């Protein structure tokens, strides 16, 4: 009761001192006990946290000039004359030494095994101030010396653990050496339970590397007997390890679990423990990412142990194993794993088996590994398979050969792809399946041999092989590479009739080609297909950034010295890309410059236009001609920009490579006499109907191309302008006379 009164009086005092604080009323019920609190003013901002960290001394009166060390201080009554002098000397040392000199001193004392002095000096030192007036803060090495001193003085493992926990107060993270010292104490005391607690704490705090080192230490000390975490802990360790891509920890976890499985079976009654296949798949994927062959072997071993030979492993486990060996580059083991996979599921349904063994999806990592060094690796694998097919236990696999065919196709090696395909039946005596044909179609289509790709399709249909969705997609790709959207749409119609749906990727490619070809009719068909199958094709923002350009109408005024330059910048088309950071877009608009642009007044006319044809028929070009800066009006500049834009779009349809000599001029010459251009309707769109002379057209062309290469000779112009009747050569008449 008196405490209540005291607290209430304290509250009233505080109220008088700080009248602005709103004080909550306290219940008057005597049976209720409440700690009176001052309600915080929610409108005021709290102070930032105390920046002083790194020493527990900050929690005490560390600024007092009187050294305050109640726990470490010596008794006022000297314990003995001999003890007093060393203690005072150690205290004096603690106030003078810095961390490096202290480390050196500890190193000397370690050799002379002055453990108690080390312990005492450390404890004095951390409670002393350094030359800057801040409490001394040890690093991990210094603290480890302290731990070692305690260990050598016979500290219990629990005390050692407490000392390690105290490292957090100094903002020092324990390292492997710290835990080794703790483990040594545990080993001396034979406390395995404490070791498991240490493991628990490490796993809980996510210190997987430390956990690995602890386990290694335990294994080296006790020969795997003293440390054996529980099954659930092992499972959790494995999950954490796969999550953090720590393959060593995952392996150790599986090792413990393997031991538990063995012990469970030996127990009476037996306990049949099993590891989750999903966890093994995850570990195999971790092994692939970290390229750790030990984890692959360990994972497979425990999987086999768990299954006990009763059933085959999940197909995903096989695929993960093949993926792991492929990432390691161990093709021999990868193909051995493929053989096991095929044998395990040889009785599965044909469609299921084809999907599991498809080189385009499940076995694609193996395909990539087979073509690592191009044709060298492909040939090596092919000849190995050929050798194995002729062995005592012949190994013949369509799936393996399909991987090689696809690998050849990926590297544009049509000859090897065809030869391997042919060898499936000729050399190996196997029957190509749909993936074999798909890979061959892909190989032909990739090098623009579209008629041959179509013939392969016709052949497979004739052979009675049922095409799948990928077959049609690859045919569409072949036609698109050939810039034939019309035929590609025909294939899609066949695809739909066969009961398949076109994928989003296929329709997007087709739409892109239609836009490139300005084929509005087929573009509309593609849009209707997308609507029919409820496919949102989205936009082509990123691809358009490479291809489309919109001459921005923004003009940037810039002063350079005494003259004002009006320059125009060419920007990417930003109209559709509004989902990203708008600030970044604004910065880009202000700073982006196209290659070769010249900002100076009357800049040089440079020819740097490049045009690349990518595999999907995307064209990239970047005009680099700088507009001559002029003080002309904004409208003139704008019309000039529009004219050049339209001109470039027309050149996209009729690329200069195809227009040689005077043919170039002849295409554009009618512009001089007619309002509309024979090229396309674009010329009449957005461009003022004005007559251009031939020289004006050539001047416009000269801004983007080396006109010398396209300039027509006078003779060619004369030839073009003069229509001559056909006449036999004079030599013919001479012969007749003779």
């Amino acid at each position, binding site marked *: 009761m008196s405490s209540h009164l005291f607290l209430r009086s304290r509250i009233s005092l505080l109220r008088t001192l700080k009248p602005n604080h709103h004080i909550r009323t306290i219940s008057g019920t005597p049976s209720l006990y409440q700690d009176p609190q001052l309600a915080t003013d929610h409108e005021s901002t709290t102070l930032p946290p105390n920046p002083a960290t790194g020493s527990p001394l900050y929690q005490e009166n560390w600024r007092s000039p009187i050294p305050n060390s109640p726990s470490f201080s010596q008794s006022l009554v000297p314990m003995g004359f001999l003890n007093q002098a060393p203690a005072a000397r150690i205290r004096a040392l603690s106030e003078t030494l810095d961390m490096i000199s202290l480390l050196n001193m500890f190193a000397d004392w370690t050799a002379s095994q002055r453990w108690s002095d080390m312990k005492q000096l450390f404890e004095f030192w951390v409670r002393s101030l350094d030359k800057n007036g801040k409490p001394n803060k040890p690093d991990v090495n210094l603290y480890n010396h302290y731990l070692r001193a305690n260990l050598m003085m016979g500290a219990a493992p629990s005390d050692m653990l407490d000392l390690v926990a105290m490292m957090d107060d100094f903002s020092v993270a324990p390292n492997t050496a710290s835990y080794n010292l703790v483990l040594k104490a545990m080993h001396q005391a034979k406390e395995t339970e404490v070791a498991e*607690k240490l493991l*628990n704490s490490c*796993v*809980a705090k996510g210190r997987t590397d430390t956990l690995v080192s602890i386990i290694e230490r335990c294994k080296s000390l006790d020969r795997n007997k003293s440390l*054996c*975490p*529980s*099954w*659930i*802990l092992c*499972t*959790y360790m494995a*999950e954490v390890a*796969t*999550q953090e*891509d720590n393959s060593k920890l995952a392996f150790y976890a599986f090792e413990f679990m393997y031991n*538990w499985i063995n*012990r*469970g079976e030996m*127990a009476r*009654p037996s*306990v*049949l*423990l*099993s590891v*989750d*296949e*999903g*966890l093994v*798949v*995850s570990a*195999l*994927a971790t092994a*692939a990412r970290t390229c750790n062959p030990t984890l692959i072997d360990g994972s497979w071993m425990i999987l086999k142990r768990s*299954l006990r030979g*009763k*059933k085959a492993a*999940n*197909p*995903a486990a096989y*695929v*993960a194993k093949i*993926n792991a060996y492929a990432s390691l580059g161990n093709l021999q083991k990868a193909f051995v794993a493929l053989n096991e996979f095929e044998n395990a599921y040889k009785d599965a349904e044909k469609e*299921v088996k084809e*999907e*599991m063994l498809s080189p385009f*999806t*499940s076995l*694609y990592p193996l395909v990539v590994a087979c073509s690592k060094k191009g044709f060298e690796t492909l040939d090596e694998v092919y000849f190995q398979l050929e050798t194995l097919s002729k062995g005592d236990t012949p190994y013949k696999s369509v799936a393996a050969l399909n991987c090689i065919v696809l690998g050849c196709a990926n590297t544009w090696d049509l000859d090897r792809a065809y030869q391997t395909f042919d060898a499936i039946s000729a050399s190996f005596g196997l029957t190509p399946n749909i993936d074999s044909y798909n890979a061959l179609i892909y190989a032909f289509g990739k090098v623009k041999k579209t008629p041959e790709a179509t013939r392969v399709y016709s052949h497979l249909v004739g052979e009675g092989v049922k095409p799948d969705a990928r077959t049609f997609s690859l045919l569409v790709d072949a036609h698109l590479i050939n810039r034939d959207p019309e035929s590609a749409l025909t294939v899609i119609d066949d695809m739909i009739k066969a009961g398949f749906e076109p*994928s*989003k990727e296929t329709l997007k490619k087709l739409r892109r080609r239609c836009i490139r070809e300005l084929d509005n009719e087929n573009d509309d068909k593609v849009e209707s297909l997308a609507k029919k199958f*409820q*496919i*949102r094709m*989205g*936009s082509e*923002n*990123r691809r358009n950034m490479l291809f489309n350009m919109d001459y921005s109408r923004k003009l940037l005024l810039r002063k350079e010295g005494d003259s004002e330059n009006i320059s125009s910048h060419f920007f990417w088309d930003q109209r559709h890309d509004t*989902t*990203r950071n708008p600030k970044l877009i604004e910065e880009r608009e202000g700073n982006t410059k196209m290659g070769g642009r010249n900002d100076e007044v009357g800049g040089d006319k440079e020819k740097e236009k490049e045009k690349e044809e990518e595999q999907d028929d995307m064209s990239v070009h970047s005009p680099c001609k700088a507009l001559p800066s002029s003080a002309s009006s904004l409208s003139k500049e704008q019309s000039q920009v529009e004219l050049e834009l339209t001109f470039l779009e027309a050149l996209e349809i009729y690329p200069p490579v195809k227009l040689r000599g005077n043919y170039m001029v002849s295409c554009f010459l009618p512009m001089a006499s007619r309002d509309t251009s024979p090229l396309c309707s674009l010329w009449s769109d957005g461009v003022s109907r004005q007559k251009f002379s031939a020289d004006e057209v050539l001047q416009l062309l000269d801004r983007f191309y080396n006109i010398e290469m396209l300039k027509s000779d006078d003779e060619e112009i004369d030839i073009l302008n003069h229509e001559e009747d056909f006449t036999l050569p004079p030599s013919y008449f001479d012969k007749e006379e003779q």
Partner: protein
Amino acid sequence: MSIIRNAIRSSFSLRASDPVISRNSLPFLQESRKCLSTVGEQPPSSPSPPPPGGSPAEEVKKPASEGWKLYGKFSGFSKHTLRSDVMNILEGCNVTSHDLKFSYMRGGNLNPAGVYVQFPSRSSYDSAMRAIAKKGRLYRLERATQSQWDPIVPYEGKVVALHGLPPNAIIEDIDRFLSGCLYHPGSIQFLTIQGLGSPKRVALVRFTSQTQAMNAYITKNRNFLLNQRITLQVLQ
């Protein structure tokens, strides 16, 4: 016996110290504590241990259109557990893959709350109980009702959840991340789940088959999307 106890000893301190695990699997922890406490009281050599938790033996028969079925809830699985793993445990219980439905917690990291199983008969249920005992009593099976079974939409191992998405990720980014994988184009949907602290965005993508979903998990897990590492989880 001591080996069995050691094998099934759960690390309570471990689970409690990890806030993610403790918060999301708290019901499991409590259930496992009950399970272990019950097991400790019973001798392991008993041929047919009684149901855990002391659940009353209710009348099982529930008239349905196709015959009565018994429903149970399996708990104790991790996010890596596949349907085939549950089938391995329930070997000999006359249960098919279609009789399993995984239920996921909406909070945290979509950890499995449990697996609802549809047993064709009481003997099948009892066989499952014996199988659990035989395999280390690491799991818990308790009775469930049809009202708990019906609403669950099975993912069938074809849906993959993408964790760790940046806030500005859009469908095009997911398409680019999953390039080379066979999934249904319009199936990408974004979820916001309440994790520890700030809410998290998760994308769910439906693949054409279980094989394709696992292929995506094997090849795309822990890849990068917009400079952030993405974790994949196959929803069973």
